[in-house]
């Protein structure tokens, strides 16, 4: 039996919402027990003295774009896996918006096989419609049987509500989760910023935050009609929150997420047309950002993720509105999230509820908790270590991060997947 004891650790437990010094006993890849900080380790166990640093469940990162197939020069399973290890992400949820998309059992089998290259857990979402064209549903049953954790066309909104309602009805029979991107497709067409003073001054094509409200209202009406399990990939505006709350109160099985970029940056960060700050949906106002931080603290927004989107230099060295949206985030998710902790907006257990527990729960995974029997997917980090981020030191193949040169606080010291150390110095 392979036994490890993490002693003198600041245990961050998102389930119990506790943050206290203790020890954690791991045997054969699973969490066996918790104990006092100075508990005597069982005979033969290897001991890791955490020296009072934080030990938390590894992050479960919802909606990571990996460039395989089709854009391997931007990111491979191997490079994404290494970045994940360095970022304390132990489970990567891969998105299906690849070239071609993951829309058949055969393509899902391909990426499942390729994902073995990565040293972390990788689970896959599948597309909801064939070729993500919004016309015909994929083989939801076969894909579900093969382990697809959710179904989504990503940021391509299905505009044909009949098609979407049939997808939802069919998915309900399989208890499959559908992930929507709540945006009105017409209103947000061509937009690269949120409408307002900033976008007007800079002359960037913009969309009203109301596009998100309209998209969400439509999708929730279809959820009420079909009673499927549904998740909004990103809710980023305060105006959309009441509809979300109402839907939950009405008993709909609905959850929502947000990207770390929308929680830590606002529209002014775009500055002089810096394309690393181009996102879908676009960055919002400071008022919206603050409302969303509060929504995460209140549990209205369930999931916080990187929405890792690797883009090569050519895709970003373009005029702002033509540049490809998105940023890498596997390695910056944890330190960026700690900004919210240091600012006093969220406690560590609150953060970890959104970073590990909720995404795992929603996808039916055992990971994301410190409970007995859970897989020993762990991250050890010092929340206080300061550093300046150098994008060229990121392990992703693509280096498009809005945090380049930013002062950050909090560093990953070690990452374990199934009890095996995959990052950090073993000494």
């Amino acid at each position, binding site marked *: 039996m392979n036994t490890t004891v993490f002693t003198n650790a600041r245990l961050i437990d998102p389930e119990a919402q506790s943050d206290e010094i203790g020890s954690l006993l791991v045997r054969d890849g699973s969490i066996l027990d918790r104990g006092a900080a100075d508990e005597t380790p069982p005979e033969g166990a290897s001991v890791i003295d955490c020296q009072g640093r934080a030990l938390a469940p590894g992050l479960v990162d919802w909606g990571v774009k990996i460039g395989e197939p089709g854009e391997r020069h931007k990111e491979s399973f191997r490079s994404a896996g290494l970045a994940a290890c360095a970022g304390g992400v132990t489970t990567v949820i891969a998105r299906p918006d690849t070239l071609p998309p993951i829309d058949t059992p055969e393509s899902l089998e391909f990426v499942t096989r390729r994902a073995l290259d990565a040293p972390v857990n990788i689970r896959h979402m599948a597309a909801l419609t064939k070729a993500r064209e919004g*016309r015909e549903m994929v083989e*939801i*049953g076969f894909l579900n049987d093969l382990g697809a954790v959710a179904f989504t066309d990503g940021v391509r909104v299905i505009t044909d509500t009949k098609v979407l309602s049939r997808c939802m*009805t069919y998915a*309900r029979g399989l208890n499959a989760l559908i992930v929507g991107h709540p945006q009105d497709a017409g209103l947000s067409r061509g937009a690269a910023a949120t409408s307002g003073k900033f976008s007007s001054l800079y002359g960037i094509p913009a969309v009203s935050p109301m596009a998100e409200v309209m998209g969400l209202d439509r999708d929730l009406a279809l959820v009420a009609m079909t009673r499927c399990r549904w998740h909004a990939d990103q809710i980023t505006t305060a105006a959309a929150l009441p509809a979300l709350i109402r839907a939950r109160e009405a008993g709909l099985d609905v959850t929502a997420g947000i990207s770390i970029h929308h929680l830590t940056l606002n529209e002014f960060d775009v500055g002089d047309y810096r394309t690393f700050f181009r996102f879908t949906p676009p960055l919002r106002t400071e008022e919206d950002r603050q409302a969303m931080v509060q929504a995460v603290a209140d549990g209205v927004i369930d999931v916080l993720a990187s929405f890792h989107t690797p883009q090569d230099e050519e895709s970003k060295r373009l005029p702002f509105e033509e540049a490809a949206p998105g940023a890498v985030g596997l390695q910056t998710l944890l330190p960026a999230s700690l900004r919210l902790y240091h600012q006093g907006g969220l406690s560590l257990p609150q953060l970890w509820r959104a970073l590990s527990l909720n995404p795992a729960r929603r996808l039916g995974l055992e990971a994301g908790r410190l409970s007995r029997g859970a897989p020993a997917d762990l991250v050890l980090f010092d929340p206080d270590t300061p550093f300046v981020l150098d994008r060229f030191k990121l392990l992703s193949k693509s280096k498009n991060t809005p945090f380049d040169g930013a002062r950050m606080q909090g560093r990953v010291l070690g990452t374990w997947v199934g009890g095996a150390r995959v990052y950090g110095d073993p000494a």
Partner: protein
Amino acid sequence: MTFRARHLLGIDHLAPSDITALLNLAEEYVALNRRTVKHSDALAGMTQINMFFENSTRTQASFELAGKRLGADVMNMAVAQSSVKKGETLIDTALTLNAMQPDLLVVRHQNSGAVNLLAEKVNCAVINAGDGRHEHPTQALLDALTIRRAKGRLQRLTIAICGDISHSRVARSNLILLGKMENRIRLIGPATLMPSGVSEMGVELYEDMAEGLKGADVVMMLRLQKERMDGGFIPSEREYYHRWGLDADKLALAADDAIVMHPGPMNRGVEIDGTIADDINRSVIQDQVEMGVAVRMAALDLLARNLRAERGRAAAGVMA
């Protein structure tokens, strides 16, 4: 004999005693059809027009044979290829037809309710040979006769109707008929192919075929009606077959002596495995075709009797 209806437009208007009377008469015609000389004079001198606005070789042939064996003058009108294409309305067609003085009119139409509309405009007896997604009463009656012969009764059976319920007039007529006869009915299929509100019709709904088939006495498969589907109700035929196609493994969950039915034409490898369809120990699909002629003879005969009686009463009234 209780059957007093002027038309046979659906199952809904029939009492259980009507159904039993019709099936009992059909039994006599089964015997007749198995003789070398398959002839009766029940419809002698009468004119039967088969009017098919929607193509159906099998049903039309069955009605044609039924009429001819009863001695009627039978005429087939393939309306799909003729006057309707020239812009004539359904009512105009009915009036034209009526002027030809038919006695029995067999109608199939692609729109639900079209046969009822026609029946209001003509002076003869009308049989619905299938209207849109609405009803197909002779199919339900021939299914009932097949079940009664195979099982020895038409009550207290667990009957699973599987597949494309939403587009199926066969399913609709069957669940009405079999429900009237006090059977337990289960509808099995993807939620996208299940009509809304059907749960209020006294049936049990299953999306999981294995659950739905458990212990069933009768397994009635339906054709996936691709021609009626605007857009995708199912992801693919291969996934449909995997989840809702009847194969030996799924059939093993039904009762040991369960029979397998299909109204035809079959999509082998889509809703049913070919070997199951051909298994003479389980499949009664060919029996359904045979019962079809007998049931249609019985229906034509009963309607003709009622028509004669009605005309007789009218003539007596005139004389009085």
